[in-house]
């Protein structure tokens, strides 16, 4: 295929996802509500407490994981459950489908992560020691988290117990993301070890790129029964 054909196919999947989300905003509502409820719960639990950078980073990543893992697997699992997957199988190629959905999931995750991070920082009155590292950590974390859960959704979509399998597959894929995420975020919030924090942020970005590069090949193997 030519680059123009790739752009056309991936663009079509992305437009489809955006239209579906605007007209039936499941992803934003699920992810956003989960995240918002988590922030509110932590706010009440930590009222009058001063959070250390490590604890704050850990709590923020709990929020990311709740919102990300809840919302994203539905993009592939939803196609199977709604019966629309065969329409894609007879008209599209798996790489374009994966990348179109992956770009959408990444955008959704990044928007949710940015909003929840801003809200969390304000509500918990936290100071950011390294703004650049903070941005890299949230962006990298969003990219890595969306890559991991997109892949687990794609892997689990064809299974009989999709939801349960998606959760089980997500565990080993998401743990490295959470470790790197907390490491980079706590340094951004003032913990010592800038080099370690920067390395973790780079790791997140690399993980996000790798999961999106490898994911479609795995998805293509499961594309048709």
């Amino acid at each position, binding site marked *: 295929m030519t680059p123009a054909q790739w752009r056309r196919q991936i663009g079509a999947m992305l437009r*489809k996802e955006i239209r579906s989300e605007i007209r039936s905003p499941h992803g934003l509502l699920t992810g956003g509500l989960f995240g918002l409820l988590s922030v509110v719960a932590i706010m009440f639990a930590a009222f009058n407490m001063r959070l250390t950078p490590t604890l704050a980073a850990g709590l923020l990543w709990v929020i990311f994981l709740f919102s990300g893992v809840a919302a994203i697997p539905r993009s592939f699992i939803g196609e199977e459950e709604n019966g629309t997957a065969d329409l894609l199988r*007879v008209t599209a190629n798996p790489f374009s489908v994966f990348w179109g959905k992956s770009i959408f999931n990444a955008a959704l995750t990044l928007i949710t992560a940015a909003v929840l991070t801003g809200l969390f920082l304000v509500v918990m009155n936290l100071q950011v020691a390294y703004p650049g590292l903070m941005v890299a950590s949230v962006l990298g974390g969003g990219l890595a988290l969306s890559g991991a859960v997109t892949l687990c959704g794609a892997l689990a979509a064809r299974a009989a117990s999709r939801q349960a399998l998606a959760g089980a597959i997500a565990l080993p894929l998401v743990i490295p993301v959470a470790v790197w995420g907390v490491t980079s975020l706590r340094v951004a919030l003032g913990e010592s070890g800038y080099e370690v924090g920067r390395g973790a942020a780079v790791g997140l970005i690399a993980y996000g790129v790798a999961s999106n590069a490898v994911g479609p090949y795995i998805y293509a193997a499961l594309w048709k029964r």
Partner: protein
Amino acid sequence: MLRGENLGKRFTDRWIFRRVNFELQPGQVLAVVGPNGCGKSTLLGIVAGLIPPTEGRVAMDSEKFGYASLAGELYAELTIAEHLELTADLRCCEPRTTELLSLVGLADSCDAPARTMSSGMRARLKLAIAVQDRPPLLVLDEPGAGLDRQGAAVLGDVVRAQAKGGAVLLATNDPEEVKLATHELEFA
């Protein structure tokens, strides 16, 4: 154009069908007929590459084909026109939206979301999607289910037009649709 060689499909320990052989040449319409549950849809799913056969193989001259199935769903939030736009982009072909909607009688409903469509309208849209890329082979699984008399006439026109240069593999229990066929493959 299409050949099925010794096809068989088993689910767990139950064979749905075995040793099915057929050949389809340009200009032919092959109707797969049989009682409910005999494996007609499964056979068409195998031909479309959606279901792997347990044994045997399918040989096609071209990978390009159009597929429409009663069981297949559409995107509830997308309009009729947006479905055709989506499939055209995914196939990298011309959308032919106006032409196809006129062909299947949906020109007045192009902005209607799929969730508001009747079963007959969905069947017509699936037919439009199947023929959009002018495929040499059409694989139609109970395409007439839910169609009114006008819709059935549209289906007949599409099948006859397709048979002029291409071929059609059709699974049906409708005697009127069987009349469109040049050959039959009967499942017990």
